[in-house]
């Protein structure tokens, strides 16, 4: 297992490096700089500012210097908010976004997983059609549509739940988490149903029944492990998607999370903030994918065996 993890970590490095490099140069190439929108400043002041932020150096030197800072864990100062470092800002936003993502993932996995399993037990009956149609709607209704709709129904018309903020009013975490998690709940429902159906048609399920075991044991003990594998494998990409897509929900519900900071930074051409957020999020995403692969492997004894022998099945 250790070999596997090391190998994957090594693979992750070029990815992250690519992300840093592409983002760095992309942002610089774009028209407009961080100080252009300021009210007209004297050229000398502008030059001084640029020198302070290293913007007067050749691009490549800036790049190398940035990498050096990164290696020490320093994302640099924010261009937009003088006096505050990107690290600070990321930290502040991260807690919020991570919590949002976690709740959404929990909702998605629990609701989706259970729905899918339930549907798989009686395929092609109402027990199957109803949850799966709901799931399809969940997939087809984008977050930016579902969010406002939920706000309209539960926040404005029914006035049951608050619609802005995070942690300010009790219950204000419900709607955003549901909006974010709904689409993933739908995907997970379909995945778990498909996985369970596949497993339930396997010979070893017939063997389990032939042993006279009650259906509940057959499903829970024999089928679940194999059937939910695709769901576990999906968790990594799911969390990644949640992180990346959180900014929509954060915008709609006005949540001070990382996603919202990112969009603002993009509009403001706050280079360091953009870079910092992108690198950070990408690293998180890569790590999560790794985690989910490891989890999936540990659940599948055959794959585990492969890792011990270094890849030979």
């Amino acid at each position, binding site marked *: 297992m250790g070999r596997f993890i090391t190998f994957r970590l090594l*693979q*992750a490095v*070029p*990815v992250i490096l*690519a*992300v840093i490099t*592409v*983002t760095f140069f*992309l*942002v610089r*190439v*774009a*028209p407009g700089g961080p100080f252009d929108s300021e009210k007209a400043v004297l050229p000398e002041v502008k030059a001084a500012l640029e020198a302070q932020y290293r913007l007067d150096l050749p691009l490549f030197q800036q790049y190398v210097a940035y990498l050096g800072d990164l290696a020490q864990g320093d994302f640099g100062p924010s261009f937009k908010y003088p006096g505050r470092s990107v690290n600070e800002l990321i930290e502040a936003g991260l807690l919020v976004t991570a919590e949002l993502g976690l709740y959404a993932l929990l909702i998605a996995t629990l609701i989706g997983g259970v729905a899918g399993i339930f549907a798989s037990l009686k395929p092609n009956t109402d027990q199957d059609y109803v949850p799966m*149609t709901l799931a*399809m*709607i969940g*997939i*087809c*209704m*984008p977050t*930016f*549509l579902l*969010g*406002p*709709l939920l*706000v*309209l129904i539960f926040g*404005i018309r029914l006035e049951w739940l608050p619609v802005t903020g995070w942690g300010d009013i009790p219950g204000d975490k419900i709607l955003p988490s549901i909006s974010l998690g709904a689409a993933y709940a739908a995907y997970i429902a379909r995945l778990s149903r498909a996985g369970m159906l596949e497993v339930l048609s396997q010979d070893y399920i017939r063997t389990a029944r032939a042993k006279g075991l009650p259906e509940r044991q057959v499903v829970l003990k024999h089928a679940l492990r194999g059937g939910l594998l695709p769901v576990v494998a999906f968790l990594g990409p799911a969390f*990644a*998607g949640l*992180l*990346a*897509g959180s900014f*929509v929900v954060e915008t*709609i519900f006005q949540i001070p999370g990382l996603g919202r900071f*990112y*969009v603002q930074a*993009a*509009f403001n051409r706050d280079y360091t903030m*953009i870079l910092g957020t*992108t690198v950070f*999020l*990408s690293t998180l*995403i*890569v790590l999560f*994918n790794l985690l989910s692969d490891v989890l999936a492997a540990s659940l599948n004894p055959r794959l585990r065996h492969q890792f011990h022998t270094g890849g030979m099945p």
Partner: protein
Amino acid sequence: MSSTAGELLREAEKGTSLWQDAWIRLKKNRFAVFGLVVLVLMMLTALLTPWIAPYAYDAQNLDLGATPPSAQHWLGTDIFGRDMLTQIMYGGRVALAVGLIATSVALTIGVTWGAIAGYVGGRTDAVMMRLVDILYALPFMIFIVLLMVVFGRNIILLFLAIGAVEWLTMARIMRGQVQSLRQQEFVEAAVSLGLPARTIIRRHLIPNALGPIIVYTTLTIPSVMLLEAFLSFLGLGIQPPQTSWGLLISYGAETMEEYPWLLIYPGMALTLTLFSLNFLGDGLRDALDVRGSKD
């Protein structure tokens, strides 16, 4: 005696009617048929919109302002007095256009890439798929937003960005298909008959991989549409005076308290379309008996 052999050869020539079989199965799937019907209606509407839309797409009536559904405006009007039905119809055109174009781009790149990687195998395959893996791991959402913000609202860029995201999955699937097909009998037969690689790929591998390709294409289109709507929603995609469902939804979200129909109808249009396409894609997947990229 030669009659036995001749008989054998004639039998060999009769192909399997995989497609007929699939069509029958598809027809039995109510959801898929529903999806197909909606899709066809939508395409017809989109094509005929300039002629059948009740109003011109840029016709405003500022005095009227936003009104709920009425006899003259079946789906109401927005704050500029524009007819919502017309807006939604034109939005449909855009959605479909983006869907088809971006998907074709993704399809062409993805299928070619995957077919070559899968067929040639070895180091070439490793390199090609490693590239796909790296690109796959990049958080594209983030990049796209970055791109769009930074480079402005260029519709070409939009297509490119969307295509760039979607071709990866297609490549992976195609490669998986080619790999498993390559080991099968008829490919070995073709190889031992001395056919060149190009021919084998073109005449034997691609037609047999057609099943999954069709399914994933049908599933990519809604994905692409969603992406476009999303970008337009953020203000990064289609720009006024062109319409897009994403744009309409974003306006609707802003004013949904007073004018909920501005959110609901475009939302329904988008959801219904995606719904239909996805069901159709699912139905095709079942009918053609396609599994995911298994080993």
